[in-house]
């Protein structure tokens, strides 16, 4: 069957869009690689929000809100396929009378094709990779990874646990850990020290969402009251040890420090997941505020390829509440493009959605300013491409040897050719190219992204031929 819409991602944006499209009686299939709905922020929300659950209480009200959305989603009548990985998306040929997309999926080792008239990518974000010496050591993980361990398995880190980075997520996670009885050896804050001065111009706008601001301040106050060791102005972090993390070292304006460490959790903000839109050659723009790419979208959430929509953090980092609003807006756009919503009705619905989105985004300019992407020089010996084990020095040498074309650097070094397809090294390589050619980061672009977007085996790919024969 050909669905009206295939949604990829069952986080806030995807679930909301599915509910809204179903309310307009459109057929919807939702594909997500996780075992249950919720996306990243609401990981394990059904599992954890059983009545009387201690964990759900400690994770906070915003987390518990996800249970309601997941319940509506389960009931909305969308064909929901968990544990389904989308590895390629194609538009059927121009000779087809009506536009149709083919979405190629791996589910429990079986390759399948899903057909739909519209596609919505609600694939969220990933944490920004920021290489530093020793970041490949076992024992070093992202804060998001540790929070996923907490939400999906109820697991707390142990050994001397250090958190290093900047942004709301490390604060929130530290706050959650503290409430659950976890131990933190210290919090290393990498945000620049002059945050107050930098943030001031954005404060009045952010006050439109004073509740979120108050929450952030309360987390900080709670951590201070609990006597958590906190260092500010942290630079030059190093993870050291033989075969695994044993020690960390860092610098502050006051000097170099070191401490034993068992787990080091890092976080430097999020970047939208753009691999699918890059591979489909949609236009993208560079966001200076968020130091990342995002697909160019029209007012309805449609990319520069007709029939392909993006919602949620994949369209720009704005948080879960905004993701819900973007899901609603994309559903309006899709209904409009399928001619089940008149132009007038669509505009009306959009106005309401736009208002919700604007409110949900109120604190974003402040957050982007308080927690900028780190810009410190990456020393030559640091591994940049984790898959191919390439150092910044190797990338620099290749970058300086010829044109500022990321595809050339990729082909000469293999950076971005490993299994992660440059999800870990892409932005850093581009940054090193910009540095070598003394050009703005926005002008460097990104290397070509090719299928498969997710791993597929030779046998799985071949099996699609037998299915047809």
């Amino acid at each position: 069957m050909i669905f009206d819409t295939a949604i990829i991602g069952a986080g806030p944006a995807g679930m909301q869009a599915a509910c809204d499209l179903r309310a307009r009686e459109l057929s919807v299939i939702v594909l997500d690689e996780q075992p249950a709905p919720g996306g990243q922020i609401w990981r394990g929300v059904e599992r954890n929000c059983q009545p009387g659950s201690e964990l759900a209480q400690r994770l906070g009200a915003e987390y518990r809100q996800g249970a309601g959305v997941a319940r509506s989603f389960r009931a909305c009548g969308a064909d929901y396929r968990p544990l389904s990985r989308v590895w390629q998306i194609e538009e059927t040929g121009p000779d087809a009378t009506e536009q149709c997309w083919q979405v190629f999926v791996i589910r429990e080792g079986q390759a399948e094709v899903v057909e739909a008239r519209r596609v919505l990518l609600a694939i969220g974000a990933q944490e920004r990779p920021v290489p530093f010496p020793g970041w490949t050591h076992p024992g070093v993980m992202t804060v998001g990874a540790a929070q996923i361990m907490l939400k999906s398995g109820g697991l707390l880190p142990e050994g001397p646990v250090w958190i290093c980075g900047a942004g709301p997520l490390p604060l929130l996670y530290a706050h959650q850990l503290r409430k659950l009885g976890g131990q933190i050896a210290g919090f290393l804050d990498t945000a620049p020290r002059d945050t107050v001065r930098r943030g001031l111009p954005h404060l009045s706008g952010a006050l439109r969402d004073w509740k979120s601001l108050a929450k952030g301040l309360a987390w900080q106050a709670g951590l201070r009251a609990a006597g958590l060791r906190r260092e500010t102005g942290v630079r030059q972090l190093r993870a050291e040890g033989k075969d695994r993390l044993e020690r960390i070292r860092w610098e502050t304006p006051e000097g170099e420090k070191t401490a034993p460490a068992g787990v080091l959790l890092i976080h430097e903000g999020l970047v939208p997941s753009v691999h699918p839109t890059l591979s489909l050659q949609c236009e993208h723009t560079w966001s200076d505020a968020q130091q990342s790419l995002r697909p160019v979208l029209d007012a309805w959430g449609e990319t520069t390829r007709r029939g392909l929509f993006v919602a949620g953090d994949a369209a720009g980092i704005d948080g879960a509440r905004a993701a819900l609003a973007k899901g609603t807006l994309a559903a309006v756009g899709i209904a409009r493009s399928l001619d089940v919503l008149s132009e007038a009705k669509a505009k009306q619905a959009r106005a309401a959605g736009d208002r919700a989105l604007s409110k949900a985004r109120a604190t974003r300019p402040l957050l982007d300013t308080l927690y900028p992407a780190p810009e410190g020089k990456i020393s030559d010996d640091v591994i940049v491409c984790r898959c191919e084990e390439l150092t910044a020095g190797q990338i620099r040498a290749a970058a300086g040897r010829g044109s500022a074309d990321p595809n050339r650097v990729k082909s000469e070094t293999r950076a971005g050719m490993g299994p992660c397809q440059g999800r870990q090294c892409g932005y850093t390589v581009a940054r090193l190219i910009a540095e070598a050619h003394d050009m703005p980061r926005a002008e460097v672009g990104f290397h070509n992204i090719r299928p498969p977007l997710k791993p597929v085996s030779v046998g799985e790919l071949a099996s699609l031929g037998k299915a047809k024969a």
Partner: protein
Amino acid sequence: MAQPDHIVIGAGTVGVSLAYGLQKRGQSVCVVDGGASDFRAARANFGLVWVQGKGGNLPAYARWTAESAALWPRFRDALEQCSGIGLDYQKPGGLVFSLSEQALIDRRAVLEEIGGGALPEGVEMLDRDALQARLPDAPLGPEVAGASYGASDGHVNPLKLLAALQQGFLELGGEILWDWPVQTLRTTDDGYELTGPDGETLRAPNVIVAAGLATPGIVAPLGVDLPLRPQRGQLLVTERMAPMLPMPCSGLRQTADGTVMIGTTHEDVGLDTGTTQASGTMVAERALRILPALSGARIVRQWSGLRVLSPDGGPLYTQPEAYPGLWTVSCHSGVTLAAIHAERLAEQILAGALTGDTRHFSKDRFHVPTLA
């Protein structure tokens, strides 16, 4: 910059092989290269240095290819030394599989025709058992009847070859202008003038256009009509794996890095470098008929490149009569021919004329009526 002796248009494998060969012969050469969105077969190819089966319809091409393969080991040594970049070149011979007894018989017939009635030198036919003995770590699929083996065949990392040629050329004192897409090419009193981005110009007495599929468009305004067309090939590459294939095979080779390349399609789709699931499935199916054990290997990337093809598949080297010092050089197998391009072809271009076998490679063999 002082005016160079030669300008080469195109920093792909073909252009830089020639530039490297000319610079080595004491010439001063400047290479200009195009924009980020250009078609670049040099970055998309399979990396075979391949002889067996080539030139069935063009015997001179078979000889030219064989000579290049013979030159390759020395070419490699010199280039690695000059550039400091290892090429991962090996010459263990190569295999072409047959998936039925009949296909094996047909394969022998094709090769015997090229060899003038007998198998060409260095070529043998292997039955299934003999083949399996040469591939002890790669259990063959039940359909495999055998293969032809060519001792002259080998493979190289094509990306390292390209980087080494560029680096070697620079080490020898050459110059490359990146991001310098040529807008126009015109004659002057004593040679040629190119216009690049922002109206910048370059002049030289000799110009070699080796811009792949963009070559015809650059010389067309001069009334030179080149019969070249694109043909798309799609490839898959797997994750790194422990060694299993000790030699390259047609459509299947394990690189020095351990990845297995699986290819490739032949599609007439114009200037489209997209990939399709259907083609991926097709080459994956064929690979599994040969080596079922590959089934569990993860594909890391599928991509496509555009072959630069002349009507008979052979090289196209042309110095139009009206334009002394202006050459066009294009071919499909630029990796295989890199060695001979850097040596014999560079010599002939320096001498000002094609001699011997290469005379067969001019565009005149197609008798294309020109508009001029």
